């Protein structure tokens, strides 16, 4: 087991290094002449050269990358290119915290509902309930978040007037007020992931229903309810939660459109605005932080899955 974990951690580290290279190449090398890009076409050649020298972008790509990468472990991403040229981390950190709130809320919604849906359809495989949950879940999963979000805003805040239109609360708002503001965006994210969670749970339930231990339990005369609760669900749900955690990537990707739609100052909106303003240092930091989160959460989920699954657990220790 220790070797399995060590191997996964090692691979994750390699992935993180490659990730930083990709992000650096895409966000900081691809734009080409940074001074020209920031100062515009009319700037003099001297001004551009001076700007590039001041920002270190007149050095070779390798030197620039190493300089940038060496700051990463200390969360030093350099300075924003847009006045007032704040340190990038000061821009990113509060946004990250906001997104975290939204993501956690969405996860707290999607896990129980998705698992419930999956259990319902897994226990009625092939019946109308199963087909209905599967088709609705799959359909919601492919509709872009901003479309679902718009319909939710229209129905629940504009027509019904129950919830606020934007997710951005007034400064100093209490936790309950914040939850109220985050409910619609969290539901929009939940709807996208619901089908996936339900499908994984359903597969787990079906597998557990067909397993030998379930048959044994039935044969020794346990009532159906007890078998389902004690044998089927217990075996189906724990691995599901771990697998679901690997879906954080989709959740993070969905944050961009949702945060824009609900005007919520999270990491998605911050990164998007950096892209619009061509603030490449903030842009690369935003993308990197999101990628980093994805890699780390996936790693943790993988390890938990392995711990829960005796097949992987023993295979790995051989």
């Amino acid at each position, binding site marked *: 087991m220790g070797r399995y974990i060590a191997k996964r951690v090692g*691979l994750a580290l390699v992935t993180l290094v490659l990730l930083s290279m990709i992000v650096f190449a895409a966000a900081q090398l691809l734009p080409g002449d940074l001074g020209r890009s920031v100062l515009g076409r009319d700037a003099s050649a001297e001004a551009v050269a001076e700007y590039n020298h001041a920002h270190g972008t007149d050095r070779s790509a390798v030197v620039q990358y190493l300089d940038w990468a060496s700051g990463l472990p200390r969360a030093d991403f350099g300075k924003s290119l847009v006045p007032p040229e704040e340190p990038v981390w000061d821009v990113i950190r509060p946004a990250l915290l906001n997104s975290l709130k939204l993501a956690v809320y969405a996860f707290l919604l999607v896990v129980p509902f998705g698992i419930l849906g999956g259990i319902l359809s897994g226990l009625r495989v092939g019946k109308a309930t199963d087909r209905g949950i599967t088709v609705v879940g799959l359909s919601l999963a*492919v509709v872009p978040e901003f*479309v679902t979000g718009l319909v939710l805003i229209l129905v629940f805040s504009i027509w019904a007037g129950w919830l606020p239109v934007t997710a951005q609360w007034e400064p100093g708002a209490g936790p309950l007020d914040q939850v109220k503001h985050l409910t619609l965006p969290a539901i929009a994210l939940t709807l996208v992931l619901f089908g996936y969670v339900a499908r994984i749970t359903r597969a787990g339930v079906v597998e557990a229903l067909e397993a030998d231990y379930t048959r044994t339990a039935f044969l020794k005369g346990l009532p159906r309810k007890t078998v389902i609760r004690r044998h089927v669900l217990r075996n189906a749900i724990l691995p599901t939660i771990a697998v679901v955690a690997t879906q954080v990537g989709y959740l993070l990707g969905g944050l961009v459109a949702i945060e824009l739609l609900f005007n919520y100052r999270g990491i998605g909106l911050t990164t998007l605005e950096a892209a*619009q303003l061509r603030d490449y240092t903030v842009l690369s930091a935003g993308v990197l932080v999101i990628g980093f989160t*994805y890699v780390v959460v996936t790693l943790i989920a993988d390890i938990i899955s392995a711990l829960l699954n005796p097949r992987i657990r023993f295979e790995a220790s051989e």
Partner: protein
Amino acid sequence: MTSFAEPAARSESSVARRERLRLLVRSPSFIVGAVVILFWITCAVLGDRITPYDPRFDQTPEIGAAPSWQHLFGTDRLGRDVFSRVLAGSRDILLIAPLATLLATLIGTTLGLITGYFKGIADDTISRVVDALLAIPLILLAVTVVAALGSRSTWTVIIVIAAVFSPIIARTVRAAVLGEADLDYVEAARLRGEQSPYVMFSEVLPNVMPPILVEATIRLGYAIFAVATLSFIGFGLQPPSPDWAVQIADNYQDLAFEWWTVLFPAMAIASLVVAVNLVSDSVQQVLER
């Protein structure tokens, strides 16, 4: 290299193909999906010829009018007929998303064949890079590249989506190729002295077509999703395209007053992605049974 067994084998495979088609046509979700897709393709092809008003410029005197018999879906704040714009809005996305998917499938299949067939260091390296690339949500990667290139042309969007999808497709193809590479027919082709490219493309490729087809239809769904999302956040199609997501981006701030300018294009996007998903789901079920 012809053998006597070949005609028989061919007819056998064509029987299997006809059987699959029959199964597809019998599946209700395939029918529903296909009808909706055909509807939007028809609209895309006919374009301005079937819209009651000019979707782009022709301004009617009514500005921001609610739905009525005159304007089924109302008019937007420039007085353009929303119904006409919804009908015309399928064209750009139905060009871009399939093109990006096709490009990604071609590149991804080639990459997957090569890495799966040769294995080794190249294979390991590519797998690691793909893992790292997949850690970045597609939308953010596209936004980054579009911002870095400073060009929001349609081709940039197509190439970015293709670039992100091809390693994903390559991974699927590679897995399928790994399953084939040890089979006897591959060994036989090698022993009769065929070159690697011939073995890969003429022997292995036909046998891994089903997973490639499934993957391509799934990717098409995601491509539509991605193009729509990129257009909504301002990094995809640009006004005055009557594209659905562009319409939404243009009007969603006025949702409280002119909901019809947003809700109808939103429904159109939903109908298209759900239809593509229904079709890809049925294709998957038929090919993998």
